[in-house]
C-alpha cells in the first residue's frame, strides 16, 4: 500500500517537472524558430557556398588560410585590441555607472541620453568624427600638433566612445536597485569602504559587469567601420578582413574560413562567459532605485561626479560636437546648406532615387518593427531562461548571443542568397530589414532583462501563487512590474542598435529605401564637399533622433516608476 502510494506521487512529481520543461520549451519555440530561420540558415548557407566547390567540400582551404602568417597577425590583433578596449572601457565607465546609479544631480536625464547617443551612431560616422578630431589636420593637430591616427590609441578611444553606454546602462540599472544597507552591514562588520564594495557590491554586480564586458568584447572583437577607417593599412580585424575578402577580392572560400574562425572564437568566449556567470549569480535584494539615489556629499563624491562629467565631455561630447560643427560648416561659412540639400533627390546624381531625408522615415519604421520583433523574441527567451536549468537552457542562453559575434557582413550576404526563393521569398518584403536588425537587438533584450528577472525573489512568486495567481498571472503581476524598467531599457537598446545597424543592412536595404547609416555611407563614399557635408548633416539628424527617442524613454521610465 505504502509502496504503491509513493509510486503514484513519485510519478506525479515527475509529471510536474515534465510540465515545467514543456512550458519552457513552448516559450523557447518561437525564439528557436526565429534563430534557425533568420540566422543559422543564412550563415550556414553562405559558409557552405564558400567551402564547397563543384559539390565537394574543400576543407584543405581551411588549413592553408589558418597557417597564413598574415591571417595569424590579424587574429592576434583582433583579440589584443578587443581585450584592451574592454579593459579600458570598464576602467573608464564603471565609475560612471556608479554616478548614474547613486547620485542625483540636475540634468541627469539629459546626460543619460547623451551617453547613449554614440552607441547608435553608424560606425563609419564615428570613424570619420575621430579622424576629424585626432587625424591629420584634425582639431588636436591644429591646436597642439597631436596626431593619434597612426597609433592604436585612436581605435581604442573610438571603442570606448562607442561602448561607454553599454557598461553604464547595463551596470547602473542593477546597481541603482541594490540595497545600500548590504554595504552598510559590511561596514559595520569592520570592512573598509573599498573592502565592502569589493566583497558585497562587486559580487552582486558580477553578472551585470560580466554581461557588459562580454558585450563590449564582442563588439570590439567584430569591430568593422572604426577599424576600417582608423586602422589604415596597419591594423585589421577579422571582420574587416572578411569584408575585404568578400567585397574587394570576391574570395568567398577565404571569407568562409575566416567567418568560421570568428565563429569559433565567439563560441569559446560565450562558453567562458556562461561559466563565470553561473558561478556568480544569486538572488539579490532589490529596492526602488528612487530610494538609493541622493545628492553627492563630501569632496570625494563631488570629485567623482565632476570627473565623470569631464570624461563624458572629452570622450563623448567633443567628437559629437566636431560632427555637428562639420554639418554646418558649408562652403560659404556656417549655414544650413547641407541640410537643405538633403530634401531633394535632384541634388544627388544616381546615388539616390529619393531625397536622402526619406532615409529618416525608413529608419524609424524599420527600427520600430525591429524593436517589436526583438522584444517579443527576446522577452520569450528571457522568460524561458529565468529559472536556471540544465545543459539545454545554458546552450539556449549562449545561442542567443551568437548574432553579436558573427560577422554582420556574412549575415547580410547570407540573407540575400537564402531568403530569395519560395517558401521564404522575402527579397521584396519590407520585413527583411527589420528581421536582420532584430537579430542584433535580441541579445540586448535578453541580457538586460535576464539579470533582473533572475534577481526577483522566488518567494514573491510563491506568495502570488498561494493567493491564487496562475503561472501566467504570476508573471504579469509580479515579474512584469519589477522588470518594466529593464524592459524599457531593453526596448531603447534594441531600437538604438536597429537604427545604427550597418553591416547587414547595407547588403539588404533596397536602393530606393535606404536607412540613415546606409545613406550616410553612400554619401561618404562619393567625392565632393557637398556629399561629405550632407553625410555629416544626416549623421547629425540621426544623432538628434536617437537622443530624442532616448529622452522620451527616460520620461516614460520616470512616469512609471511613480507606481513603485
Amino acid at each position, binding site marked *: 500500500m505504502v509502496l504503491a*502510494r509513493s509510486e503514484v*506521487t513519485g510519478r*506525479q512529481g515527475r509529471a510536474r517537472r515534465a510540465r515545467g520543461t514543456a512550458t519552457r520549451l513552448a516559450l523557447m519555440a518561437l525564439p528557436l524558430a526565429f534563430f534557425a530561420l533568420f540566422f543559422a540558415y543564412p550563415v550556414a548557407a553562405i559558409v557552405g557556398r564558400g567551402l564547397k566547390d563543384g559539390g565537394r567540400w574543400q576543407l584543405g582551404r581551411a588549413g592553408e588560410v589558418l597557417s597564413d602568417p598574415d591571417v595569424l597577425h590579424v587574429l592576434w590583433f583582433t583579440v589584443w585590441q578587443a581585450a584592451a578596449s574592454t579593459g579600458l572601457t570598464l576602467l573608464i565607465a564603471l565609475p560612471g555607472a556608479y554616478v548614474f546609479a547613486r547620485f542625483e544631480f540636475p540634468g541627469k536625464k539629459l546626460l543619460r541620453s547623451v551617453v547613449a547617443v554614440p552607441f547608435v551612431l553608424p560606425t563609419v560616422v564615428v570613424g570619420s568624427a575621430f579622424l576629424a578630431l585626432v587625424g591629420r589636420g584634425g582639431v588636436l593637430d591644429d591646436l597642439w600638433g597631436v596626431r593619434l591616427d597612426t597609433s592604436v590609441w585612436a581605435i581604442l578611444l573610438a571603442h570606448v566612445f562607442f561602448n561607454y553606454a553599454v557598461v553604464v546602462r547595463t551596470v547602473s540599472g542593477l546597481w541603482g536597485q541594490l540595497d545600500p544597507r548590504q554595504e552598510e552591514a559590511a561596514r559595520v562588520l569592520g570592512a573598509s569602504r573599498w573592502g565592502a564594495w569589493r566583497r558585497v557590491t562587486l559580487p552582486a554586480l558580477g553578472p551585470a559587469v560580466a554581461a557588459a564586458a562580454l558585450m563590449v568584447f564582442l563588439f570590439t572583437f567584430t569591430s568593422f567601420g572604426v577599424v576600417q577607417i582608423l586602422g589604415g593599412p596597419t591594423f585589421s580585424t577579422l571582420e574587416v578582413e572578411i569584408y575585404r575578402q568578400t567585397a574587394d577580392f570576391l574570395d568567398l572560400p577565404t571569407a568562409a574560413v575566416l567567418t568560421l574562425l570568428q565563429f569559433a572564437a565567439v563560441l569559446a568566449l560565450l562558453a567562458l562567459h556562461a561559466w563565470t556567470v553561473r558561478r556568480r549569480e544569486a538572488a539579490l535584494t532589490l529596492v526602488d532605485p528612487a530610494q538609493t539615489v541622493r545628492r553627492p556629499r563630501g569632496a570625494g563624491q563631488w570629485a567623482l561626479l565632476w570627473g565623470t562629467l569631464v570624461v563624458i565631455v572629452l570622450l563623448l561630447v567633443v567628437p559629437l560636437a566636431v560632427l555637428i560643427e562639420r554639418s554646418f560648416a558649408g562652403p560659404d561659412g556656417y549655414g544650413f546648406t547641407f541640410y537643405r540639400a538633403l530634401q531633394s533627390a535632384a541634388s544627388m546624381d544616381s546615388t539616390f532615387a529619393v531625397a536622402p531625408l526619406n532615409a529618416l522615415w525608413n529608419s524609424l519604421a524599420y527600427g520600430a518593427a525591429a524593436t517589436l520583433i526583438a522584444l517579443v523574441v527576446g522577452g520569450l527567451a528571457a522568460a524561458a531562461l529565468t529559472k536556471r536549468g540544465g545543459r539545454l537552457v545554458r546552450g539556449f542562453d549562449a545561442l542567443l548571443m551568437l548574432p553579436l559575434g558573427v560577422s554582420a557582413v556574412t549575415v547580410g550576404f547570407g540573407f540575400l542568397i537564402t531568403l530569395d526563393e519560395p517558401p521564404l521569398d522575402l527579397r521584396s518584403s519590407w520585413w527583411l530589414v527589420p528581421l536582420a536588425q532584430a537579430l542584433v537587438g535580441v541579445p540586448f533584450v535578453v541580457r538586460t532583462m535576464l539579470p533582473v528577472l533572475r534577481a526577483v525573489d522566488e518567494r*514573491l512568486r510563491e506568495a502570488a*501563487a*498561494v493567493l*491564487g495567481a496562475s503561472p501566467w498571472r504570476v508573471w504579469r503581476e509580479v515579474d512584469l*512590474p519589477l522588470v518594466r524598467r529593464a524592459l524599457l531599457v531593453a526596448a531603447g537598446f534594441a531600437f538604438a542598435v536597429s537604427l545604427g545597424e550597418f553591416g547587414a543592412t547595407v547588403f539588404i536595404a533596397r536602393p530606393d529605401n535606404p536607412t540613415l547609416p546606409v545613406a550616410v555611407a553612400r554619401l561618404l563614399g562619393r567625392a565632393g564637399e557637398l556629399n561629405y557635408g550632407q553625410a555629416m548633416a544626416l549623421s547629425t539628424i540621426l544623432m538628434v533622433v536617437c537622443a530624442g527617442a532616448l529622452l522620451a524613454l527616460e520620461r516614460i521610465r520616470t512616469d512609471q516608476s511613480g507606481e513603485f
Partner: protein
Amino acid sequence: MAEHADPADEALLRLDGVTVRFRTGQPPALDAVGLSVAAQEIVCVLGPSGSGKSTLLRVVAGLQAADAGRVFLEGRDQSGVPTHRRGVGLMFQDHQLFPQRDVGGNVAFGLRMRGASRAEQERTVAELLDLVGLPGAQRRAVAALSGGEQQRVALARALAPRPRLLMLDEPLGQLDRGLRERLVVELRRVFGELGTTVLAVTHDQGEAFALADRVVVMQEGRIAQSGTPLEVWQRPATEFVARFLGFDNVVEATVRGGAADTPWGKAPVPDGTPDGPCRLLVRPAGVGITAAADGLPCTVAARTFRGTHVALLLQPDTGPQVEAACALRDAPQDGESVGVTFAAEDVVVLNR
C-alpha cells in the same frame, strides 16, 4: 487502491505518510509525516530550525512536491493540483509583500485573482484592515511600514480571499516581545471571529502555546508529540520534547514497585508506571525545597530571578544538578544547604 473524496472524512487537512527528500543519501526533510487538522482548529507545529516545519507548509501549499505520501484538503487528494488552485493561504516568515503595490493593492491581490468585483475588493480590504488594526492604510507604501505593520498587512492579505486553510510561517518571529504578546491575543480573536482553520509553524514555545488549540512537536522530519498545549507542557513524550521545552532534569532511572531509583535516590512515579529501566523527567515545579535534613541534601549553585518565580540550580552530593522553581519569598540564598523532594505529579516517564 485509489482513495476518493470521502464525505465522512472530517479533517480539513490530512497528511498521509508525506516524505520529502532534498538530497539522496541525506536524512529526509519530512519523514512519513501523518497529521490531521480539523475545521476551525488552530494547530501549531513546534520545532527547532531544520526540523522540517517550513517544508511541511510548502508541501501543503503545493510549492514543494512530496516524494511520497499525499495531502488531502477537505478529503480531496491534492496530488497534481497546482498551488494557485488549492485555496489555501500562506503567510511567509518575512511577509513577502509586493514592493510595487501599496497596502490596498497587496491585500486585494488574492481577491483580484479570484475575479472579485472592484466594490467587493474595496469593501473586503477595508474590513480586513480594520480587523488587523490598520484602518485607512490602503494607500500607504509597503516600504514605509514598520515590521509589525507589514506583518499585519501580510495577515490581511492572506485572509482576504477567505482561504479554507491559513498557514503561518513563524508568524511573530521578527516582532518585539510586547507586540508579540498583543498580537497572539489578537490573532486568536481574529481566527475565532472568522472561523479560520490555521496551521502555524514556530520555534517559539510561548507563541505556540498561546496561539494553538493543539501543538505538534517535530524532530528531524518526524512528529515527536501531538497534544493540547497543557498536555505537551505537563507530559512531554520524549527526552527531545522535554529538553526542547527547556526541561533539563532528565536522568536514567529504574522503576520498581511504584518508585524509581535515580542518581538522586528514590523518586515517586505516577500510578500505573510499569517496572523497568527508563528515562525520567522531574519538572522544576515538582522539585520541593525543604530543610536539609528532610530530603536529598543539596547546595544552591545558582539562583536566577525570573519575575514570577526564582529558578534554582541545585548541586547534590552525588549525581547531576537539579533545576527547581520556587516562589520569591521561599527562595534560599546562593551557597545555602537545602533538602530536595520530588512530587509524583511532576515526574514524567519519557518514551525512548
